[in-house]
């Protein structure tokens, strides 16, 4: 007589025990982030321009800033020094790797990888300079200074004109020479060496 009652009771008891041991999906840890907190840290700039601040700058304005804040490490013309070379579009017909380059090189010394011949996105220049440069005072440049330096670097690499003003609208439209060269990783393990 009591059997039909015991079975469901045991089932619910077992279910309750299981539930008690499984933590809820959300644990209620952490505090809501405010828009101000997010804005204070969210400095990244994406290829489509998302994240670019207001402001503007051209290569003409950037030349003096570069000479003052960058040239000591990267060379007066961006040719490199204690830090990476930044300027050098050579060879103009191909980035410094691959069969075209090997034909072009033909015994010449290797050309360095630079913004002009290897960086696929102009927005990356702005993002990186703003967050990490100059090495002596990272994160100290204003938006205008960063636009101007980006413009100077792109102009010296022959990608834009000295008078072109970079801002949140124009910078994402800059097409970098090496852009189409970048492909996703195709290594998967297995027997083939890639």
């Amino acid at each position, binding site marked *: 007589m009591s059997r039909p009652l015991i079975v469901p009771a045991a089932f619910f008891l077992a279910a309750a025990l299981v539930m008690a041991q499984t*933590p809820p*999906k*959300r*644990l209620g*840890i*952490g*505090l*809501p*982030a405010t828009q101000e*907190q*997010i804005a204070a*840290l*969210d*400095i*990244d700039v*994406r*290829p489509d321009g998302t994240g670019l601040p207001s402001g503007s700058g051209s290569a003409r304005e950037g030349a003096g800033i570069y000479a003052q804040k960058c040239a000591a490490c990267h060379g007066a013309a961006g040719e490199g020094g204690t830090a990476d070379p930044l300027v050098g579009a050579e060879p103009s017909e*191909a*980035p*410094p*790797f*691959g*069969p*075209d*380059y*090997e034909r072009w090189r033909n015994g010449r010394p*290797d050309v360095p*990888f630079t*913004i002009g011949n*290897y*960086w*696929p*996105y102009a*927005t*990356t220049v702005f*993002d*990186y300079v703003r*967050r*990490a440069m100059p*090495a002596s005072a*990272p*994160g100290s440049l204003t938006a205008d200074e960063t636009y101007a330096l980006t413009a100077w670097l792109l102009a010296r690499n022959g990608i834009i004109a000295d008078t072109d003003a970079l801002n949140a609208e124009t910078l994402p439209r800059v097409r970098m020479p*090496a852009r189409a*060269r*970048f*492909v*996703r*990783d*195709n*290594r*998967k*393990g*297995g*027997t083939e*060496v*890639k």
Partner: protein
Amino acid sequence: MRKTRPAGHRDGLTRRALLRTTLGAAALGVMPDATQAQEPSPDTTKRWGRLPNALGARSPAENPRRTLNPPTSSRTPLQDLHGTLTPSDLHYERHHSGLAVVDPRAYRLLVHGMVDRPLTFTLDDIKRFPAATRTCFLECSGNFFGTREETTPQDVCGLTSQTEWTGVMLSTIFTEVGAHAGATWFLAEGQDAAVMTRSIPIKEVLGDAMLAYAQNGEALRPEQGYPVRLLLPGIEGNACVKWLRRIELSDQPFMTREETSKYTDPLADGTARQFSLVMDARSVITSPAYPQAIEKGFVEIRGIAWSGRGVVRRVEISTDGGRTWKAATLQQPVLPKAHTRFRYAWQWDGRPTEIVSRAVDETGYVQPEMSALRSARGRRTRYHLNPVTGWTIAADGRVRFAVERVRV
């Protein structure tokens, strides 16, 4: 303060009495105290040693050191280590703008972007989540050097180390913030002076990605990202962002400097491989190696092998310069994405030769020769070089790095 002891209870040497005795003896110079350094003695049985102390130290006779490549990196002394774990103070370093010294009380992690609830977490918050522990290697993808015979294992590939990490699974954090189904990438950002950023594809890593706050049982070392770093087992060290301050979920990569102009692989066909995250299988003989000299007779060849794609299936050893190969013994347990210790019993007959190792992982991938890597990728690729390496043995027993094997 001093209690009078009941009479008749002086049979046992109480702790306080012992302390009084030893301190008195120490004061008299009869016995050492807890801090006193002791010279090795020809007979250690005739004098008490130093007492327990609050923080241990290595034997003064052992002096393993990282080698420095200023201003960016230091390398683990692989040839000085046994087993598979890297002592925390010998873990390799690779910093892009020096290390950040973070106040753990002020530490906050922000998680935002394509989430239902953008949240900030304190260090205590992160430690409150269900924890997980994982032993795996961490390796810089720029971990190859070999242009001189006078090259140690530390020089060849000392930018790999192994740790038992503890932290919270990233998937737990993603549940807490309500990650959107459409989020396919996240940005990891550090709070060093490089404000280091990398975009990580979520599907590829979420199974074992962690936010690590402990290293070999204790808090992370500052140089490993104290108080919290991203840990992506099997994936290049640069993506395992240290001093983690922000995670932003997105439906596209952010194309940061470290995933475009750096950490990409220019290939022979004129394309550049991007987001080449997984570390392929590799091995290195750590003994015998330069600058050792061996004697005729028994030599145990020892080393480590690892793969970012899973477990090491086998390690093959050649003692005749790569003509014939035999299987080494793997120390169990073999963990996935982890340094695996291998050993091979060898009798050296005194004739000059070259000893070589190569790893095979669970996907069937065989650690390639440098010539195969170069023909697949071209001359100018700089990262993910994992060539087969070896050591030449001269007639006098001197061991040198086999430069010819990796010459391009």
